[in-house]
């Protein structure tokens, strides 16, 4: 199956060949393994059903969720494939469909999950804004920043680096955006957790002190921004020093020279 570094366009023949590698029937041993593990878990946890249930539910969830995903994705892939083959320049709905999937299915779900994971949230009570916006302000903010980050980075990947043909090819767009969304989602949920707990407990008096001595809010919140960014990026950063450098560059724009 080694094809070298040449970009390969998936032909229908090749696809079928790949699909044949793993059939529903050949997945059965995996299910059997999970059942065996759940039985082992039942005895290992002192004849309690909880662990066993968890293992089985996880198996069922994986199967059901991914089957649903496939039933959503495979019509989309087929449609785009057929449209690019026929080359109807007039009614090419494929890019709209792919982008619609990314921005109207993946984006709202990711923003919802990211904003609802944190223990604390923000409900500004200012009278000027509408009630709907006040209650969902975190969701809206998260959605806007996810949209910015993923469309920027996705554009870099699609138009600058990978350059698939056509550019909206769903087998490039959807996995790439999916990975970007998923990672940004977990970073944002960590960021929200830390930001709100710091604002409410740890940094509250410090910010008040700085404000009462005449500082503006932007400068008073730089230490908090630094700690939020470095801890929410930590899982990805670890050995990647250049992100630390980016954070430092960003924070050093301010006049704060603490620590």
């Amino acid at each position, binding site marked *: 199956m080694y094809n070298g570094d040449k970009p390969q366009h998936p032909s229908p023949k090749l696809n079928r060949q790949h699909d044949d590698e793993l059939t529903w029937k050949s997945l059965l041993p995996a299910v059997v393994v999970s059942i065996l593990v759940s039985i082992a878990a039942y005895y290992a946890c002192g004849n309690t059903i909880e662990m066993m249930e968890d293992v089985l*539910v996880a198996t069922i969830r994986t199967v059901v969720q991914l089957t649903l995903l496939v039933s959503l994705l495979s019509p989309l892939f087929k449609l785009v494939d057929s449209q690019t083959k026929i080359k109807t320049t007039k009614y090419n709905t494929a890019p709209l469909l792919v982008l619609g999937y990314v921005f109207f299915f993946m984006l709202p779900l990711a923003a919802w999950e990211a904003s609802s994971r944190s223990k604390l949230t923000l409900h500004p009570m200012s009278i000027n804004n509408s009630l709907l916006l006040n209650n969902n302000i975190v969701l809206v903010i998260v959605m806007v*920043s996810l949209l910015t980050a993923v469309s920027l980075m996705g554009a870099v990947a699609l138009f600058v680096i990978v350059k698939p043909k056509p550019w909206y090819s769903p087998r490039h767009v959807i996995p790439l955006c999916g990975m*970007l969304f998923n990672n940004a989602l977990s970073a944002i949920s960590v960021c929200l957790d830390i930001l709100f707990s710091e604002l409410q407990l740890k940094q509250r008096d410090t910010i008040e002190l700085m404000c009462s001595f005449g500082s503006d809010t932007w400068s008073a919140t730089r230490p908090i921004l630094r700690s939020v960014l470095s801890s929410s990026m930590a899982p990805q950063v670890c050995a990647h020093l250049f992100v630390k450098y980016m954070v430092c560059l960003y924070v050093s724009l301010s006049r704060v*020279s603490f620590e």
Partner: protein
Amino acid sequence: MAFKGLVAIPGMMTGNLLAGSSPHKAAKYQMMIMILILSGNFISTAMTTEILLWNVFENGALRDDWIDNNDSIRVSQLISSIMVPWKSQSSIGGTKQDSESTLDSSVIDVKLTSDRELTNSDNPFFSLSLREGSFANNKRKMTADFTVPNSGDIAILEGVSGVGKSTLLKSIAMLNSGMIFSASASSMAVSLQGKDRDSFLPQEWRKQVLYVPQQISSTLGGTPESFIRFIEPFHPHVTLESLTLQTLGYLTAFDCANILEQSWSELSGGESQRALLSIALALKPKILLADESTSALPNDMKLKVEEEMKRSGATIIMVSHDVEQIKRLGTVRLSLAAV
């Protein structure tokens, strides 16, 4: 992440390898996605944090009371409630509790009395008129009317603990004090040298009317010296040298000139009180709101601090419980008490 690629092959590379790509191509894809993920994470978290930080301030004061528990349902909870309804019921339903128990509707009125008659004729240095500002979760209502007639006066605010002295001082300084003016009869008007507070920007107002908290927060990093360096750019009328020198002057008078370079976390309560007060006096605000700024000091040190306060000519509104101090220092006596 540092371990990545040694044993576990990362996700995108695995996918490519399984689909039949060469290891070269798979690794290149993985490198690309790694860098894009890092940049994307940085952009999205920085943006979220920055926009949220704009929204959590009102009038330049941190509204930490706007942050409350998140009771929105997660997508993953929703999915598991659909798939395994018998298991996840407890995690979704029944967690909501009414936090606002407004059963106890008795409202305590707090009133401020001054030993000076309210004189409307002459132009007072500072005047405040507060009608029914409700605070402490709408359990208390404050009414206050007082003036500080002349520049250089020292007004002493007294009252039992928890009556709302800090609340009053903070709301004068436009900080988040928890005081709400929701009822139609409630209002707050503050004027300084005949100018109304509304004509100032919050940040500008706080430079004129400086609130000094009772204690510094434990998370304040750096030293008093770095704090001076931090706040100096916001006060265009002072230079860093003069501010540091004057602070040092006050600290020398307070017998602790050596603490300027020590970190806040190493200072004792009394030392950090003196440091904050010295910086505040050196900034020369129009009015200094001192919230029990001498509470952690011994008596002889209190005398020294009072001496410096009088000598500096600053107008001060100070909270104090010390009867002797009130007799010594106060030219205006304000007492806050529940009616």
